[in-house]
């Protein structure tokens, strides 16, 4: 396959993997959310993510002949996944889940905004669609980050601590792909650096409004490795749990 095709494929797989894994993490809040509306919100966001992941795997299947979405989503080896470490971490407390959702969705929003103009035409409409869905995720995250950042002394401290934990992981979203140059030169995607820049410009003022101190990205080692198949110890058990039913009877026609 030529480098351009490989570059597009790699980009789509990491996006699909990120959406799938964070979708599963969000779904783990069902029944446990701090209030009923949050349960429903996180369940809805989880559903969107998993559906978007499915759509990307279907596109990969149609355009590049990869396996069907279920096989790609549930039956690959752990080191074949290309998700970033941020999405792999267990939910922890609500503060971590919320700040992760905030940091991740602002990056995704800009990623799909950029892809609306991609030279890879089949992604354009999908990117526009996803962007309109992710907009609701951002509205949700922003409201809660502002509210808890400026809430009580405890809520503020917990949000600040969660931000400091999640920030190096979030910088790992932008781990450069081996095809970065190809993607940029072929006008497929403006690149992880450009995305990171737009992301920082967006989140900084919101964090300020929330009275939260954004860590200095230049002084932090980003959590890289996920895009090359090196994952945290949290991914394997999650994949095991996600795929257990399917592995139990891969030939089943109905569940």
């Amino acid at each position, binding site marked *: 396959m030529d480098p351009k095709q490989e570059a597009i494929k790699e980009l789509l797989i990491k996006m699909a993997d990120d959406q799938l894994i964070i979708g599963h993490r969000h779904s783990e809040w069902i029944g446990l959310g701090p209030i009923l509306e949050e349960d429903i919100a996180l369940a809805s966001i989880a559903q*969107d993510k998993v559906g978007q992941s499915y759509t990307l795997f279907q596109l990969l299947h149609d355009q590049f002949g990869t396996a069907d979405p279920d096989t790609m989503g549930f039956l690959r080896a752990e080191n074949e996944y290309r998700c970033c470490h941020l999405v792999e971490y267990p939910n922890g407390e609500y503060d971590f889940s919320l700040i992760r959702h905030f940091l991740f969705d602002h990056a995704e929003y800009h990623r799909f905004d950029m892809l609306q103009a991609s030279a890879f035409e089949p992604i354009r409409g999908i990117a526009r669609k996803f962007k*309109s869905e992710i907009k609701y995720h951002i509205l949700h995250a922003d409201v809660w980050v502002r509210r808890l950042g400026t809430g009580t002394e405890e809520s503020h401290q917990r949000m600040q601590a969660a931000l400091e934990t999640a920030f190096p992981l979030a910088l790992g979203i932008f781990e450069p792909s081996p095809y970065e140059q190809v993607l940029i030169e072929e006008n497929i995607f403006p690149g992880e650096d450009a995305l990171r820049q737009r992301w920082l410009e967006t989140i900084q003022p919101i964090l300020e409004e929330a009275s939260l101190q954004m860590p200095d990205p230049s002084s932090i080692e980003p959590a890289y490795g996920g895009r090359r198949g090196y994952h945290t110890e949290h991914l394997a058990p999650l994949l095991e749990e996600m795929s257990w039913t399917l592995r139990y009877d891969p030939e089943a026609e109905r569940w």
Partner: protein
Amino acid sequence: MVTEQDVWKALEQVYDPEIPELSVVDLGMILSVDVAPDGKAVKVVFTPTFAACPAIPVIKEDIAAKIRELLPVESVTVEVSYDQPWNSNRITERGRQILKQRGFAPPPHVTAEIELEVLHTVPCPYCGSTNTELQTPFGPTLCRAIHYCHNCHQSFEQFKPVM
């Protein structure tokens, strides 16, 4: 011989699985209808309201089944496409009336990206008051938000604006 118009008429009888009466045409989901020159093969392309809508496979099957039931065709192809992604402005006037009759607030016409402001003071589908409040943009399905009317003291659902 089957014409495109016949197919559109048949599609008016394919309904949202959760809101009978609201057709896929009124929802603005149909992107194109093609009929082969001999009238024997039909192709319908539709676009989902949300990528994660669990009704996509059901709607796909319903479209094919309804066309086969009503029209003398030999083959029906139904495809899902995001080339012209769905937005809530695509819901027809008739669709908006049906939503209201069923107790759902229709989405406002939107011209820009959704901000929280457009989700406030949505007219109540029961009493028409705009003394209403957004409870949560995430309702029982991806396409619905939950509001509360301070005038008639009832919760109501809204078909979410999507742009």
